[in-house]
């Protein structure tokens, strides 16, 4: 599978690493982008992931990983600037536009993204997705929230607790 294009690297010779998704797809990506993941950072610093080796990510499937890497590649230059204190307003606006567009996705993908962002410990992505989910559940009932996030149907016991809660705090459901 082709590596995602990564824009201008350092002098055109940025170090690349290979990540392998749970369904065995290989992704070649700049080390700087992959290093946004706290989980991967140490391995990469130790020289892992280069050459034919690749770092296996058994918890992340290829669809999710490609989405995660899209985020990392976009955010890597700003992260390399130490949170981009000297980024221009245009750069920041562009990242914001990207972020808004990025989370405008199907709910099932969003869920996989939450899990991947946590497994890989990508702080910015965790916040971004958590914010999106919080926005999505704001006006919803507990049952709608469960469906939105793909929780299993409640057990009879859980259902009884939800009903009791609804009776007790009726004002919150009006």
């Amino acid at each position, binding site marked *: 599978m082709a590596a995602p294009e990564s824009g201008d690297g350092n002098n055109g010779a940025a170090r690349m690493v290979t990540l392998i998704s749970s369904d065995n797809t290989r992704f070649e990506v700049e080390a700087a982008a992959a290093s946004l993941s706290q989980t991967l950072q140490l391995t990469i610093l130790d020289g892992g992931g280069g050459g034919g080796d690749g770092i296996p990510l058994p918890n992340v499937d290829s669809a999710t990983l490609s989405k995660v890497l899209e985020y990392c590649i976009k955010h890597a230059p700003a992260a390399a600037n130490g949170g981009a204190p000297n980024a221009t307003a245009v750069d920041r606006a562009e990242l914001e536009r990207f972020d808004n567009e990025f989370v405008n996705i199907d709910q099932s993908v969003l869920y996989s993204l939450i899990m991947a962002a946590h497994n890989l410990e990508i702080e910015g992505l965790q*916040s971004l997705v*958590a914010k999106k989910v*919080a926005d999505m559940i704001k006006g*919803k009932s507990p049952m709608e929230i469960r469906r939105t996030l793909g*929780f299993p149907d409640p057990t009879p016991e859980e259902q009884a607790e*939800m009903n009791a*809660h609804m009776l007790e705090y009726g004002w*919150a459901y009006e």
Partner: protein
Amino acid sequence: MTMPPPKPRRPPHLVNDAVEEILLRLPPDDPACLVRAAAVCRTWRRVLTTDAAFSVRYRAFHGTPPVLRFLRRSYFVHDCRDGLVFLGDHRELPEEPESFLSTFQFAAVGRRRACPDGGHFLVTSLGFQFDAEVTANACHYSSETGEWGPPTSVPFDYVRRRSYNRSCFIADAVYFAGEFGNVVLRYDLVRQ
């Protein structure tokens, strides 16, 4: 090597860290939203209602005290401060000491400045006893010790007047002003 079967698209509940990140971002100015979230499942309920560390994070994140305790009925609100609300009928506090004989009670709630997020709080109770002479009584409850301290009293020139009752915490003292006269009563939390 055998491949694991593809994961079903109906995942189990979210991992705890992810839950916290989401709940942290629910708006503090929409208590109904927090209440409904608490009904989603036991984990969410635990985080929102009993997890003190989360409560501290939430306050820090939003810079405002959230409404994270839910009330069954309307209570008389004595005081609120530092993300705490003290209600008239709060059964979780023990009774004040028997020697604290007072009517017309006022209460102030707050945290000691030294540890604003320590989770511990103080409730200061001020009351007046009407015998031949009026005395002002005060004592305070600390959530750290779980007990009321010994009451202290001073003779007091009580003048009933129309006013709102107010209290404030400054350093290690609570100041009360209110319908009991044109004075401000100071209760020293350290020297009592």
